[in-house]
C-alpha cells in the first residue's frame, strides 16, 4: 500500500492518537518536572535531574496537611454521597411514585449548573446563617455535588438489572434480606463502585465550590492554587504524578477483577 493510501485509511486513528497525546501531555510534563531541581522558586524550566522531591515529599510547609484534609473530606464525602445516592437511586429505579419526575429534575440540576453559581449560593447561605466556614461546610458542599453523580451511576445499573433474578431468589425461599444481600447488592455493586469512585475523584479535585465554602481551611487544590502565585514547589508534581499512577493502577486492578468475575459467572 502506498504511504498516502495508508495515511488516508488510518486518518481517523491517527487523529485519535494525537488527541490521546494531547490529553496525556500535561501528565507527562508533570512527571518530568517532578524530577527537576529548579533554579528559582518557579519550576517552569528544566535545570537538572534530582530525586529530592520524591525523597522528601512533605518538606514544604502546609502541603501535606492540605493533602490530608482533602483525603479526609474525600473519604467522608464519598461514603455520605454513596449511601444517600444509592438509596435515592433505588427509589427512582424501582418505584413509581408521586413526585418522581420532580425528584429526577432535582437530581439533574446540580450536574447542569455551573460550579461557580452553586458554590456562591451555598456560600451565601452559610454566611447568612452565620455558620462557620471550615471542615463541615466543605464536607456538606462536597456531598451535595457528588450526590447526583452517584444517583445517575447507580440508577443506570439498577435499571439494567433483570428483576426476574430477584423473583427467582424469592421463589427459592430467600428472605427479603437474603435476596437483597446476595442478589440485589452484588448486581448493583459495579454501579455503586463507579459512583463512589467518581465521588472520590470529584471531591478530591474540586476547587471552585470548595473555595466558596472553605473559610480558612486549605484543601489540596486550594494549596496548589495558592502556590501558583508564589511558585509551585516540585513536591506538587510528585503528588500529581503519584495520583496519576495510583489511579491508573486502581482502574487496571478494577478491570482485571471485573474480567475474572465475569469469567466466573459465565463458567
Amino acid at each position, binding site marked *: 500500500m502506498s504511504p498516502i493510501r495508508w495515511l488516508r485509511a488510518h486518518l481517523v*486513528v491517527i*487523529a*485519535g492518537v494525537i*488527541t*490521546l497525546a*494531547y*490529553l496525556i*501531555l*500535561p*501528565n507527562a510534563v508533570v512527571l518530568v*518536572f517532578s524530577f527537576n531541581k529548579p533554579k528559582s522558586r518557579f519550576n517552569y*524550566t528544566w535545570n537538572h535531574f534530582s530525586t529530592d522531591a520524591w525523597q522528601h515529599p512533605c518538606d514544604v510547609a502546609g502541603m501535606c496537611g492540605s493533602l490530608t484534609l482533602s483525603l479526609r473530606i474525600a473519604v467522608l464525602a464519598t461514603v455520605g454521597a454513596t449511601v444517600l445516592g444509592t*438509596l*435515592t437511586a*433505588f*427509589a427512582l429505579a*424501582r*418505584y413509581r*411514585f408521586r413526585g418522581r419526575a420532580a425528584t429526577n429534575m*432535582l437530581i439533574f*440540576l*446540580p450536574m*447542569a*449548573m*455551573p*460550579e*461557580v*453559581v452553586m458554590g*456562591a*449560593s*451555598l*456560600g*451565601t447561605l452559610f*454566611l*447568612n446563617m452565620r455558620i462557620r466556614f471550615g471542615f463541615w461546610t466543605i464536607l456538606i458542599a462536597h*456531598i451535595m455535588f457528588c*450526590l*447526583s453523580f452517584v444517583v445517575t451511576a447507580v440508577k443506570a445499573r439498577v435499571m439494567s438489572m433483570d428483576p*426476574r433474578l430477584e*423473583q*427467582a*431468589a424469592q421463589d*427459592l425461599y430467600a428472605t427479603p434480606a437474603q435476596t437483597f444481600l446476595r442478589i440485589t447488592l452484588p*448486581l448493583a455493586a459495579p454501579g455503586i463502585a463507579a459512583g463512589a469512585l467518581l465521588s472520590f475523584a470529584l471531591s478530591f*479535585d474540586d*476547587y*471552585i465550590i470548595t*473555595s*466558596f465554602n472553605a473559610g480558612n481551611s486549605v484543601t489540596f487544590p486550594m494549596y*496548589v492554587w495558592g502556590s*501558583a502565585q508564589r511558585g509551585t514547589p516540585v513536591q506538587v*508534581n510528585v503528588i500529581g504524578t503519584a*495520583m*496519576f499512577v495510583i*489511579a*491508573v493502577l486502581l*482502574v*487496571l486492578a478494577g478491570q482485571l477483577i471485573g474480567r475474572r468475575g465475569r469469567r*466466573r*459467572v459465565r463458567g
Partner: protein
Amino acid sequence: MTAATAPATDPAPPPAPAPLPAALKKAVRRRRLVPYLLLLAGVAWLLVFFAAPMVYQASTSVQTGTLEDGFKVTWHFATYWDALHAYWPHFLRSLAYAGIATVLCLVIGYPLAYTIAFRAGRWRNLVLILVIAPFFTSFLIRTLAWETILADQGPVVTFLNGIHLLDVTSWLGVTQGDRVLATPLAVVCGLTYNFLPFMILPLYTSLERVDGRLHEASGDLYATPFTTFRKVTFPLSMPGVVAGTLLTFIPASGDYINAELLGSTNQQMIGNVIESQFLRVLDYPTAAALSFILMAVILGIVTLYIRRAGTEELV
C-alpha cells in the same frame, strides 16, 4: 453463582384482581411508603444545600446594604441592570470562549471516540483508561503544566514562532506578539483540554451503540466513507453529541480557573467576576445577580440548542 445464571423462566401470568384482605392492604400501604423513605435523606440534602441556597441567592440579588450594616431585601432590581451594564463584555467573552472550546472538543474528541468505538479492538479498555486517568490527577496541577508547555521560551512557542504561525494568530488577535500565555488562545486551549473527556465519554457511549453492520450496509450501497459518516454514523451519534456539548459548554462558561491561570486580566470570564465580587469585593448582591444572569443565559442557549438538535434523550 448458579442462581444468577439460571435461565429465566416465563413470568407468571398476572393474578386476577381479588378483594384484598385488611392485613395485605396495610402491607401495600406500607410498601407505598418505601420509595419516600429511601428518598428522604438524599432529597432533603439537595433541598437544603442546593435548592434552598438558590432561592436564598435570588433574594440576595435584590438586597441592598453594606457589609457593616447588613443587607436587606429592598427589591432593588437595578443591581441586575448595573451588573449587566458593567460586565457584559465578560459574559460575551465567557460564551465565546466556552463555545469555541466546545466546538474544538467536538472536532478533536470525535476521532478519538470513533477510534475507541470501532478501531481500537483489544486496546479499547486501555485507551478508555488513558482518557479517564487524567481525570484522577488534580486538574489544577495539569492546568499549571500548560504554563510550562506554553511558556514564552518553551519548545511550543519557539516552534510556532519558527513557522510564523504566531504572526498569523497575532494578526487574528488571539495571541499577542510572540507570546501564547496570557492570550485568548491559551485560555481556550486550557478549556478545551480540561473539558475534552466530558465530550469524549458521551460520544463514545453513543457510538458504541451504533451497529457496525450499518457501515458495511452503507458501503455496499456505494456510499463513500465520508458519506457513510455524514448520513449514518453522525446522525446516530447525535445523543452523544448533544450530551457532550452540554457537559462541555455549561461548565466551561462558568469556569474561571483557566482564565486565571493561563490568561491575563484581558481574558477574564464571568466566573472570575463572580468569584472576586463574592470573595474579595464582598458585594454579595452583585455576585448573586451575576450568577442568575449567567444561569438564565445558559438556560436560554441550552433550550434553543436542544430544540434545534431535536433530541429528547437528555436526562
